[in-house]
């Protein structure tokens, strides 16, 4: 991590991206299922509101981190399903270390000198 380039708002955006990528690790899902899983797995802490999920999904798709495909359901309804690509998996793994480091430093600051983070 380059310390002088660290951007708190960018980090918050990064978290959303990582949440989406992490949810897709288990298999392909459609939009609302991703939102529900993020909420469930974070015990309600992370919640997508006002459609904020879609720009994230579509940007990740454009960047090649996830792959979106359409499939038909009974009744002719069409749904878009997203799957994690190899690039997305690599990105997720790479950013995990970054998040870990940021959180560790944050805890160090919050906990104060000499106190071990909880």
């Amino acid at each position: 991590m380059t310390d002088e380039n660290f951007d708190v708002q960018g980090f918050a955006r990064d978290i959303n991206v990582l949440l989406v990528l992490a949810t897709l690790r288990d298999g392909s899902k459609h939009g609302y299922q991703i939102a529900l899983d993020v909420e469930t797995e974070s015990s309600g802490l992370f919640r997508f509101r006002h459609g904020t999920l879609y720009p994230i999904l579509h940007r990740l798709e454009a960047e090649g981190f996830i792959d979106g495909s359409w499939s038909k359901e009974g009744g002719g309804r069409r749904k878009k399903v997203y799957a994690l690509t190899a690039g997305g998996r690599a990105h997720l793994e790479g950013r995990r270390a970054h998040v870990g480091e940021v959180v560790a430093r944050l805890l160090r600051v919050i906990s104060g000198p000499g106190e071990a983070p909880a």
Partner: protein
Amino acid sequence: MSALSERLRSIDASLSVPLPRRTALLRELRYDLDALTEELIAQGVPSVEARRRATTALVPDAGTLESLESVHASRYRRATAALDVRRLRGLERGLLAAAMTVASVSGATMLASAGITRDPSPFLWPVIGAGLVLYAVCLIKAFELWIKGDHAKPRRGLWGVAFLSGAVVVLGAAGVLTDTIVLFGTLEASPDLAGTLFMAGVRREATLMAVAIVLALPGAVFWLVAHQWIALVEDAHRRALAFESH
């Protein structure tokens, strides 16, 4: 029309995203809204509350619409996003003028080398002028539809292309008719030159009509392609907005 349908239609109207992508986006949103509502109802949430919660979670607000526009903007829009609107418009007009100058110069060279501008019908120049206007309109429309991705009113100006294509041919035909009448008048006045004048007249009028058709044909083909493309994407969009669900 339900409140949800109205909301989706208003999103459609306010979202400045090129049409095929806007269609996909609305279709995805519609499916997710229905599916999430169903899931919440299955969990025991009353249907009105389930719809409200699904809408709050998934329907984009103004900020999200802006993010979606930036994600789905055409490459051209992304590349020129930093430019001032007036400057960009000036640049676009300059590019159009340059393209038309290149087309005019190369067209004039081709016509001259083929001997078409030697002893031409006086109608040849208006036909070429109308043809150039037709190509400029085609260029602007193609740029709007497939480079800029400006699909707020995709059919705007398209009938102008059809009209101009027809006008080029009609102008050519009117020229042939007028020239023929003039030629017969000349033949009556100078019957001794009939053979020479008649052959020169046939060559001139055949050339005029050929130039008119050659100029109008690409315009007509462009109109057909653009018309069909718009009909296809609009039909898909209408079906997505008709909400083929329960």
